[in-house]
Structures are given as C-alpha cells and as structure tokens.
C-alpha cells in the first residue's frame, strides 16, 4: 500500500498514519489552489451549495489526513478529485437510488447530429449562435439531470479536462467504462441541446437574426 499512495489514501482509513516521508505531502496552499474546481464539481454532483460545501470540506479533511501518503511528484489535482469522487459516490449510495441503467433510444448518432445541425437550422457559424442562445442555468440543469455516473464522467472530462486514463484511475473503473459513461452522458446532452437550441435560435428577437 505504501507504494501506491493514491489508492491507499482512500481505502485504508483505519490504518495508523505513516510518519512523514521525504518526497511526500503538499502544502495547504497547494491543495487550496484546486478549491474552485472541486467546488464546482461538487455542485454538479450534489446539486446544491450547502451539500457541495460539505463534500468539499470532507474531501480536504481526508486529503490533509493522508497527505503524508501523497507522492510529491504525482498529480495533486487528480488525487484530490479522486478523493472527492469517492466521497461523493459513497454519499450517493446512501442517499440516492439513481441508476445508470437509464434507457436510451436507438437513434443513430448520425441522425441525432443531423437533427441538431440541419433541422436545427445551424450552419457554419452555429457555434457562436449556440453559445449565445443557450443559457448557463439551463445547461447546468441539463447536466444535473444526467444520471450520476454519466454526470461525473462528463464533468471530469468536459469541464476539468482530465484524460480518459486519469478518470479511469480516479474512479477505479476500466477505460472502456469511462468512455461509455462519457459518450452516453454527452448523447443525452446533445439531444437536449438539439431540442433546446432550435427554439432558442428561431425565437422572435432571438440571437439568430
């Protein structure tokens, strides 16, 4: 376990703490640089500020408790997100019956895109139009309606920019599972956006003119 500080920190909570080891640890300041990123991810997962604050505080308490096991040359940001994800997942197990088995229709991806792009009246300049037509608050609501495993994967990839491999390590799942969660989550968002964008772009006085 000592050779694998990233994993050990989350699974060995009852073990006595090892003494300080040279080359391990991080400062309070280094850890707090990631506060905003952890908080916004916690907000998406918990869907409300009070629970998000609790989740982030719990994440930091665990991180500081196990800081001697963090190898100084490894990725602190990924390590903190791993702790956050684990803390969130154990909360969801207690408080939620959400399932990843959301049934998805069989519309081929190409049809979905053609609906969004062609039927939605989007053209080459669509990117900027889309960005100005869709409100952040609606995007957040759409994200927060995704089943939790998909939502977490989408946030870790699209918002925080982690690689598939980093997310797989973080969640202790195979790479293929990360890709499947990510693609299914984005597919739901894409469908929502295709439906959202069309009325927004064609609304009288809208931004499409």
């Amino acid at each position, binding site marked *: 376990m000592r050779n694998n500080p990233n994993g050990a920190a989350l699974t060995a909570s009852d073990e006595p703490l090892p003494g300080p080891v040279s080359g391990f640890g991080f400062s309070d300041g280094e850890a*707090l640089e990631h506060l905003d990123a952890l908080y*916004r991810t916690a907000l998406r997962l918990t869907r409300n500020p009070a629970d998000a604050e609790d989740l982030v505080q719990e994440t930091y308490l665990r991180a500081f408790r196990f800081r001697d096991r963090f190898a100084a040359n490894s990725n602190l940001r990924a390590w903190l997100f791993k702790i956050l994800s684990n803390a969130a997942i154990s909360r969801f197990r207690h408080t939620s019956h959400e399932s990843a088995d959301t049934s998805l229709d069989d519309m081929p991806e190409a049809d979905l895109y053609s609906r969004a*792009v062609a039927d939605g009246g989007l053209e080459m300049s669509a*990117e900027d139009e889309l960005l100005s037509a869709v409100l952040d608050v609606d995007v957040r609501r759409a*994200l927060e309606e995704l089943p939790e495993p998909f939502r977490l994967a989408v*946030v870790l990839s699209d918002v925080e920019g982690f690689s598939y491999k980093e997310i797989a390590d973080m969640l202790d799942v195979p790479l293929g599972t990360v890709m499947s969660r990510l693609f299914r989550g*984005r597919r739901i968002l894409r469908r929502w956006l295709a439906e959202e964008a069309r009325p927004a772009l064609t609304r009288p006085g809208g931004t499409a003119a």
Partner: protein
Amino acid sequence: MNCAEMIRLLEQFVDRELSSTEAFEVQAHLDNCPCCVDIFHFETAMRRLVRRACSESAPPSLRDRILSGLHTESDP
C-alpha cells in the same frame, strides 16, 4: 474515412484521445466534408457551453471553514 466513421471517432478526436494516425484521418475527412465540419462545430460548442456553465468559484467562507477544520483536526 466516411462520415459514419468520422462520427464514431469524433468525440475521441475532440478529447484528443485518438492516435496520431486516426486523428490525421479525421482531420483529412473534415477538410473535405462541410457537413461533418458543422457536426464538429456542434460538438465543440457543446463542450464550450458546458465549461462556461460550470465556472463557479467557491464561496470565500468555504476556504476559512476548511482551514479551521484542518487546524481543529491537527490540534488534539
């Protein structure tokens, strides 16, 4: 590469997760297919929307709460 193959690889392309050979093939297809360029723009717009929507900062009180919790914990 045809349009269906491009769509299958598009997300991994945007995520920079393709091998350089595959990425080159996707790029070559995009250079010659305006339809797929629209799809590519839709995909990148969606990522930008999600990123923009999720750009909140933590409240300042949370930092204080974390630091005070830390000191409580380290002072037995």
